[in-house]
């Protein structure tokens, strides 16, 4: 089911990546791009045309060497450039995790602020029922969220993709941008011209009274679809798109919960230490008195992702599961309906 915002074919999520890169490369000649196959446009065509416009001093193909890619980006950032490194699939962060976690995240702090590291690491992320399987289909934002010193952006729409990526490039600190691969084809009308959306500000996608639904990236759409179905049942759901996990706009969620008194969080990553757990604990610790019941998280299963459609469907975060979670927090769920389908594995 297509959403209203996506039916006007103006800017695709994929082209929003390219537009943001081009926008910032035009604005600031220190901005450079590196990664595997980026000169020819990249496997997801997100860097198409950059070589033609900006030339080989600004667009650099690399060998398959994620550690060297992340390290080169870091060194160049310290030396005053603004590198944007493509890590083709976010699953591959595991191969350069040392550079990301031990070097990029920590070096400013452990040198007492002697260096500044304005870089962006970006690439395809997420499950999204595309059959990519266990090693190309993870939602990895929550890996990064355990590490102080890294900002995390995960846009939900083409406009957000363009504006948030631009802000990430302008940001003076390291930012990891997660591009949901199932959204690359999504299109929406985006105003012409430069677009920058500040990091750390959630978006209220639709207002509501009875329950707050919080999503990120593809699960924002999941929440919107759930909200429409709940509407038909006379339940008014507010939908919040977090946009960034660090900085986290916790206030937006706390304020919403203060009005609705109920919270459902939809996250695509496995529930075991998902970002939703962090958000849920903030709400419980800081707004316990506002809650009419415990927050419920709808998350991807605590398993590596399967491929066959019936197995994918079994673990996918769907509007259906969000609707059932809402019914649960409102105390109107059927006894067998739970937010998480797998045996005894809540969260």
């Amino acid at each position, binding site marked *: 089911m297509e959403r209203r915002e996506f039916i006007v074919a103006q800017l695709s999520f994929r082209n929003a990546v390219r537009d943001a890169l081009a926008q910032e490369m035009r604005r600031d000649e220190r901005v450079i791009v590196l990664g595997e196959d980026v000169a020819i446009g990249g496997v997801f065509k997100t860097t198409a045309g950059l070589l033609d416009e900006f030339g080989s001093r600004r667009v650099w193909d690399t060998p398959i060497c994620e550690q*060297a890619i992340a*390290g080169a980006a870091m*060194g160049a*950032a*310290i030396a005053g450039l603004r590198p944007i490194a493509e890590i083709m699939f976010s699953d591959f962060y595991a191969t350069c995790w040392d550079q990301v976690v031990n070097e990029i995240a920590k070096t400013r702090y452990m*040198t007492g602020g002697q260096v500044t590291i304005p870089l962006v690491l970006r690439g395809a992320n997420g499950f999204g029922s595309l059959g990519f399987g266990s090693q190309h289909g993870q939602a990895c934002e929550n890996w990064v969220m355990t590490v102080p010193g890294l900002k995390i952006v995960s846009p939900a729409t083409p406009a957000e993709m363009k504006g948030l990526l631009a802000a990430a490039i302008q940001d*003076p600190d390291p930012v990891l941008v997660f591009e949901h691969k199932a959204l690359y084809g999504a299109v929406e009308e985006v105003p012409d011209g430069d677009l920058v959306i500040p990091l750390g500000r959630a978006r209220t996608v639709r207002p509501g009274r009875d329950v707050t639904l919080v999503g990120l990236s593809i699960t924002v759409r999941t929440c919107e679809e759930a909200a429409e179905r709940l509407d038909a049942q006379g339940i008014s759901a507010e939908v919040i798109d977090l946009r960034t996990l660090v900085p986290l706009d916790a206030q937006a969620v706390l304020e919403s919960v203060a009005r609705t008194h109920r919270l459902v969080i939809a996250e695509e990553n496995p529930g075991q230490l998902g970002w939703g757990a962090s958000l849920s604990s903030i709400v419980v610790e800081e707004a316990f008195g506002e809650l009419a019941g415990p927050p419920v998280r709808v998350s991807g299963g605590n398993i590596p992702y399967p491929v066959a459609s019936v197995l994918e469907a079994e673990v996918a975060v769907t509007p259906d599961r969000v609707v059932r979670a809402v019914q649960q927090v409102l105390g109107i769920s059927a006894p067998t309906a739970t937010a998480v389908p797998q045996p005894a594995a809540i969260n």
Partner: protein
Amino acid sequence: MTQETVATRRFVEGEGLNVELFQRLVFTRRFLEKVDTLYRQGRVRGPAHLGLGQEAIAVGVGSLLRPGDRSIGTYRGHAHALARGASPESMLRELLGREGGICAGKGGSMHITSVEHGYYGSYAIVGAHLTIANGLAWADQIQRNDAVTVCFFGDGTVNIGAFHEAVTLAAVWKLPVVFVCENNQYMEYTPISAMIPTARPAADKAAAYGMTSIVVDGNDLTEVRRVIGAAIEDARCGRGPALVEADTYRLKGHSAADAGKYRPAEEVERWRARDPLLVYREQLIAAELLDDSAADQMWTDARDELNALTEVVLKAPPPDASGAWTDLWSDGSSSWRN
């Protein structure tokens, strides 16, 4: 002037014997010995990895680099920071956990950094900083800066994946970077010979990266300057990166906590006779640029200077506790949410 002659001229300039370099060797040796002593007194926070016996590499390369050139190293990095001009007092403040530490108390012995002097840091994950060195050099290449990056690392480092990725990328992109392997014969407590499939950890791998195999006597400052000087000038002139293996020896343990008992006494004695300070002193004396009394005076002066410095630093207060919460983000804060 052709690139060739530029390189040749600089190379000759860097070759001569120089009493000031001996003084730097002496000061560096005294500094490391002082840290060793302070460690034994329980005054140094955390582990301290000393490059005692390896000073000629840091001092020699430091003397070849110009302002604007960059260097980067490992947890065994005190000599490399001093060699670029980092303040010994700020370093001692860092090591002893006092206010005014070179990394504001957040780095300690393993992360001594002095960006203002072109020393881009000491990294304690084996191999990681080779990839960062590439980025520093890449920025200079893109901006057409006439600058070189030198990256120091140990013999044990050639076995970790980051080494291979970094040297590959440097070669493919022809970066102005010189990788200097300080082959001190040990990776922690194990002789490197037991952990490499060929005789030489770095030099034997050079061909695989399309590089010349370069070995230098790392305990001979003159040789260090001659051989690494040529590699630096090649990189500066756009002839691409180099991988240099400098033979040397760690006169003490892996860190100040390690007595190094696993090393055969005969081996230690053999290398003691090749102490880089003895080697350079003899060269200077033979050239009549130094005599015994002047050399001895340098030892005394360096000791006195460091004793005085240590006294001042030990009297300094610790850093303000609130500093724990600064310097994560470039706005100075550490807050991640509103």
